[in-house]
C-alpha cells in the first residue's frame, strides 16, 4: 500500500510541510508500530532513523551515570524523534522512548538528509519544530525550578492530553515519576490533590481529564507558551 497523500497524513508536522518537500519524503516513509517501552534512540549512540508518530507519545529523557532520570521533552503526532539529524549531530545525549503506545512512520536519516539537500524549505519547517521543542524544554526547566509537584503534574497531564485522542490517559504513576523526577509515591499524592479539586479522575492505569481549563489555570503560566508557538510556526496541532 502506497504511503498516504499529504492530505491524509495524520502526523501534523508532515502535513505542514510544503507539498514538494512531503513528496520527497513520501517514498521513504516506512509505516511502523511503536509499542510502549520501545527505545527509538539510545543516548550517545549513533541513530539511523527518525520517527513521525501518528498516535502515541515519545519522551526524551536524560540520565546521570547512576540512572537518576528526568524527562526533558515530549512529542506525539505533533512532531518527530531524532532532531539531532537536523542539527548536524549523529548522536544525542537524550534517550528517546515510547511512553504511550502508538503507530506512525520511520524514515532513514540518510533519506531525510538527502531530501533536505534538495529542498531547503523542508529543513526550515522541521527546524520550526526544533524551536518549539526548545521552548517546551525551557518551560520544563522553569516549572521544575519553581513549581510544586502537583502544578508540574497538571502541566504534564495537559501536554499528554494534547497528544492523545479522548480524555483518558493510559499512563502509569511510574512514568509520571520519571517525567517529574520525584519519588513515585509523591506522584500518587499529587494526583490525589488534583483529583480532590475535581480536575481529574484516577483509576488503576488510567487518568481521565475532567476539567482542562482548571488544569491550565492550576499550572499557573507554565503551560501554554510552547503550544502557542507551535500554532504560530507550524499550525493547529489538531
Amino acid at each position: 500500500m502506497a504511503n498516504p497523500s499529504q492530505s491524509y497524513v495524520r502526523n501534523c508536522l508532515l502535513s505542514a510541510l510544503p507539498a514538494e518537500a512531503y513528496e520527497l519524503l513520501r517514498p521513504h516513509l516506512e509505516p511502523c508500530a511503536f509499542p510502549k517501552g520501545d527505545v527509538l534512540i539510545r543516548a550517545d549512540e549513533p541513530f539511523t532513523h527518525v520517527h513521525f508518530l501518528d498516535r502515541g507519545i515519545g519522551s526524551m529523557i536524560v540520565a546521570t551515570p547512576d540512572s537518576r532520570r528526568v524527562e526533558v521533552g515530549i512529542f506525539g503526532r505533533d512532531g518527530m524523534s531524532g532532531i539531532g539529524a537536523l542539527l548536524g549531530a549523529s548522536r544525542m545525549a537524550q534517550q528517546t522512548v515510547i511512553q504511550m503506545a502508538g503507530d506512525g512512520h520511520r524514515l532513514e536519516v540518510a533519506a531525510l538528509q538527502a531530501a533536505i539537500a534538495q529542498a531547503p524549505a523542508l529543513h526550515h519547517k522541521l527546524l520550526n519544530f526544533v524551536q518549539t521543542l526548545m521552548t517546551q524544554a525551557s518551560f520544563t526547566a522553569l516549572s521544575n525550578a519553581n513549581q510544586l509537584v502537583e502544578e508540574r503534574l497538571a502541566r504534564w497531564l495537559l501536554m499528554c492530553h494534547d497528544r492523545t485522542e479522548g480524555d483518558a490517559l493510559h499512563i502509569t504513576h511510574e512514568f509520571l515519576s520519571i517525567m517529574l523526577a520525584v519519588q513515585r509515591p509523591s506522584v500518587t499524592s499529587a494526583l490525589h490533590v488534583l483529583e480532590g479539586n475535581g480536575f481529574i479522575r484516577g483509576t488503576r492505569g488510567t487518568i481521565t481529564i475532567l476539567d482542562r481549563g482548571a488544569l491550565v489555570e492550576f499550572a499557573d503560566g507554565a503551560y501554554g507558551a510552547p503550544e502557542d508557538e507551535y500554532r504560530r510556526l507550524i499550525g493547529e496541532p489538531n
Partner: protein
Amino acid sequence: MARYFFHQRTRDATIEDPEGSELPDLEAASAEATTAARQLIAAAVLRGIDPVGTAFDIADDRGNLLLSVAFRDVLPPSICDPQPRNPW
C-alpha cells in the same frame, strides 16, 4: 523483585496507592517511602503548612501490611531532638 504498595495515611483517611512500585526488597521499599515522605514534608514546609500525610503503610500485592514509615521518623535528628531539660 516484588511489587510494593505505598498507602499514605493522613489524619482523615488513607490515600490508596493503586499502582505500586517494583523493588528488590522491603529495605528498598522502606528507602523509597523515606525519600517520598521527605519530599512531601519539604514541599509542605516550604508553603508553611502541615503535610497531610502522617505515615506510609507499605503493603504487598495481597494487601498485607509489611512495614510503616512514620513521617515524624524521617526528619533529621537536629530538628526532632527535644531541647535538653533544664535541671533546675
